[in-house]
Each structure stands twice: as structure tokens, then as C-alpha cells.
């Protein structure tokens, strides 16, 4: 194969591998994309059929299902900002744990100065 001018043999082989590889990575995720989109469709239609059989389909509009997504996004954002602010909190729990005390030399109280961390 002579993609580039005078490519050395090993580089030619490398280019083949690179192109093939990239195509396959795409293939893998494209197939996963199609399959999972299909799975979701099937699950959704099954749910709808189920609701329909129970005569409750009119109660839930497609929109509502999607709206719940928006709400969840909002909550996620709130959580995100919250954790950004309070990232250090976990440390407090740690202190208590340490007071559970252990040393391989002895198993009794240890680290009694942990409080001033």
C-alpha cells in the first residue's frame, strides 16, 4: 500500500492498523448506539402497551416523561453546585472513624490529638 510517498513498510502497516482500529472503535460505539436506542424503544413501547392495557395511557403524555428528565437535570445541577461548595465535609466523618482506634502495637486508644486536624 502506498498512501504516503515512499512510506516505509512498517509505517504502511501501522497506517493500516490505525485506520482499521479507528473504524472498529467507531463501529463498536455505533452498534452500541443503535442497539441501545432499539432497546430503549422496545422498553418504552412495552411500558406504553402495559399502561394502555390498564387504560391509563391518556394520563401520561410523552412530554411528561421527558419533563421528568428536565427536573432531574435541575436537581443534578443543584447537587453539583452543592458538592462543589461542601466538598470538605466528608472529612468530619473521618475523624470519628479514627477514634475507633487501632495500632498494631496495641489496640487501645490512640491518636488522641486527632481533633486538632
Amino acid at each position: 500500500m502506498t498512501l504516503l510517498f515512499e512510506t516505509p513498510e512498517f509505517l504502511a502497516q501501522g497506517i493500516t492498523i490505525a485506520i482499521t482500529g479507528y473504524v472498529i472503535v467507531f463501529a463498536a460505539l455505533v452498534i452500541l448506539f443503535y442497539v441501545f436506542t432499539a432497546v430503549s424503544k422496545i422498553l418504552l413501547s412495552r411500558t406504553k402497551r402495559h399502561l394502555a392495557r390498564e387504560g391509563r395511557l391518556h394520563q401520561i403524555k410523552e412530554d411528561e416523561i421527558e419533563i421528568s428528565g428536565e427536573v432531574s437535570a435541575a436537581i443534578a445541577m443543584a447537587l453539583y453546585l452543592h458538592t462543589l461548595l461542601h466538598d470538605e465535609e466528608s472529612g468530619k466523618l473521618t475523624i470519628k472513624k479514627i477514634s475507633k482506634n487501632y495500632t498494631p502495637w496495641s489496640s487501645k486508644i490512640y491518636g488522641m490529638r486527632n481533633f486538632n486536624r
Partner: protein
Amino acid sequence: MFGLKKALTVFGIIAVLALMNFAFVQNGYSKSPDGISITETQSKTVDSESPMEGLYKFFSYTGFRNARVGNLIMIAVGLFFIFLAIKYDYEPLLLIPIGTGIIIGNIPFFQDGGINLQLGIYQEGSVLNYLYYGVLKGIYPPLIFLGIGAMTDFSSLISNPKLMLLGAAAQVGIFLTFLGALFLGFNMPEAGAIGIIGGADGPTAIFLSSKLANGGIINGLQTQNLIGPIAIAAYSYMALVPVIQPPIMRLLTSNRERVIRMKPPRAVSKLEKIIFPIVALILTTFISPGALPLLGMLFFGNILKESGVTKRLADTARNSLIDIVTILLGLTVGASTQADVFLTSQSILIFVLGALSFIVATAGGVMFAKFMNLFLTEGKRINPLVGAAGVSAVPDSARVVQTEGLKYDSSNHLLMHAMAPNVSGVIGSAVAAGIMMSFLM
């Protein structure tokens, strides 16, 4: 009680000791005769030895006597890693163990004359050597993926699967770096291992390099042990994602593109979340069986999490288990940078290639998002900034996207959308690693 002057004096003395060593001892003649004499002293019973001689003998074992410039450089690097982690909060869970590991791996010790005190990571019988097996044999990375699986929420990806493609696009970094490494003279397996730096995924990089560039003979070719440089490069750049990515993202996008708003992701049912890891496990590993150790474990962990009936196993996988493995992995990867092995021109090349691969990967993700927009209708367009998250480096690159997005529209939260390419980038680079193994082993 103790003057500052005195303190400086002490530092001075230590400095002088160290310098003396470099000046007088390390110049050519020292290594062999000195080393031999010590061995002789030990093996035959000395009939008269004064404490002063004992002290001198001991001095020959100390770090002051055995330090090379390389050790000091690497210790400085280790200190810098620790500094970055504490000061800027860059990937502390990795940089602290790796940084400390670098220091530990570069404490100089006596090894002339074939004497093995079982201290160095490359010395048989040392603790570090035993713990290093988990890296060398590729055992730690799959266990880390197990824990990651048990803490990863694939909802964002399930709710908008087309964003997965961005995670595929960004893997171009891997393959171009692979070609670059070939071009620079690395052999096939080595180049494959170096390429994976572009995957922006530490465990994957360590796993693949332990298979392809472990110092053994791979597919008929003698490889060098490049696990250390590759791992350090991968983690360094992952830590620097907030520095590397923004300029590229800005360069490749227009102002109008950067403010594109995307529809919030739909809610995902429990059943979908259970089915996803199972389907993904079977599909991806059928396509790239080489990814089995990584993706098998990743999705196994996710099944533990999402099945809803194995909470305690998922809990342990994402807490004790991953922590223990992270500690050991970080420590030994750090220690594997022992100066005489690490400080080579190869390592520098690897670092250069690594930087390029991150840049290419980011560009790949962003450009592919723009490409996809050509086929998408108005309301469904993708904000191309989100493409940058396809490199993985979870979740830092997703946060970079969020931060950048907010700069141009302070109410446009892109984080949720960026999570999808982010995790699919992990899948993508594991698939790529599997492909490399198939072709090159």
C-alpha cells in the same frame, strides 16, 4: 531555643555532604573497587574493625553516598506531584500516591557488586517488587475498572446514545500517536502502548503497556519496559486537562456554537440501567475481545451497582477494593520511575507524544461534534464544546466543558451532556486497547 542560623547551618552541612559525594565519589573510579571491597569485608571475617571503620562502611550504604543526580531530579518531580495535588487539587487520589511512590522509588541504595538488599522495585524479593507484580501482570487495572463500574452512572449515555459517538471520535488521538511513535522509531508493540496515552485513561494505559511494552518479547520483538513513562505521562496530562483543553476548544469553535443549548436528558428507567451494562458487555467484547479484561470488569461492576440486589458488593468494589488497589497501583507506578530506568531520551519522546495525543483527541471530539451538527436539525444540535469530553479523563474533562460553557452563557449547564461522551470515551479507549492487543500481540 533554636536559631534560624543554626537551622541553615544544618541544611548547609547536608548540602555539603551531598555535594562532596557528587564531587569526589561518583567520578568513574568509585563504582567497582569500592563496591568489591565492601563485599569482601563482609564475606571474610574481619579481625579488627573500629567503630570509625564501621561508620565509614555504613556511610557507603547510605543514600548520601549512593545518590545520583537522576535520583534527586526524580525526587524533585515527586515533590512537585504532591505539591500539585495538594495546592491545586489536581487528581490528588492519584498524584499523591504516585508522587510519594516516585520519592520512595528514588531513595538511593547500595547495589554494587550484585548485592541485593531487597529494597528497590526492580530487586527480586523486595516488597515493592512483589506489589509491582500487580502492575506488571496487568492485574490492578481491571480491578480498578471493577470499582469504576460500580460507581459509574450510565444514565446520561443511555438517555442520549448519539453522544456516544463523540467518545469514539476522540480516540483518534490514540491512533495518530501510535503512528507518531512508529515514526519516531519505537517498534510496533511499544508504539501501540504509547498510543494509548491518547485514551486519557490511566488504568487502560497501564494495562496495555503491561501487555505490549513490559520489557519482554512481544510477537517476536524485544520491547522495553515503558510502563512507568507511559503511566506517568497519562496521569500527568489527565491532571492537566483543565490547562490543555480550553485553548483548543476555543480555537475550534465559534461564539455561536459555544452557546448552543441542548435538550435536557430524559429520565432513564431502572430496567434500562440494568440492561445497559449487560448488552454493552456482550457487544463490545464480541467486537473487541481484547477489551474483555477491562470492559468485562467495568460492566461487571456496573451490574453489581444497577442490579439493585448486590448493593454490598458494589459498595465494597467502589470503596475498600478500589482504594486498596489505587494505593498499591499509584505507589508502584511511582516507584517504577527509578532514575536509571526512567530518565532516558525515550521517556522524553513519550511525554512529547503524550501531549500531542491529548491535543489531537480533544480536537477530534470537538470537530466530530461539529460534523454531526451538519446532519442534525435545529433543536437537536450538539454544543461542540461537549465533544472535548470524549477524551474521557473522567470527570475532569466534563467539568472543563461545563466551566467553558458557563463562560459564554452563564445559565447553560453542559455537565449532564458532557458525561455521556465522557464515559463512552472510556469504553472507546478500552475497545481501542483491545484492538491493539489483537493486532500487536
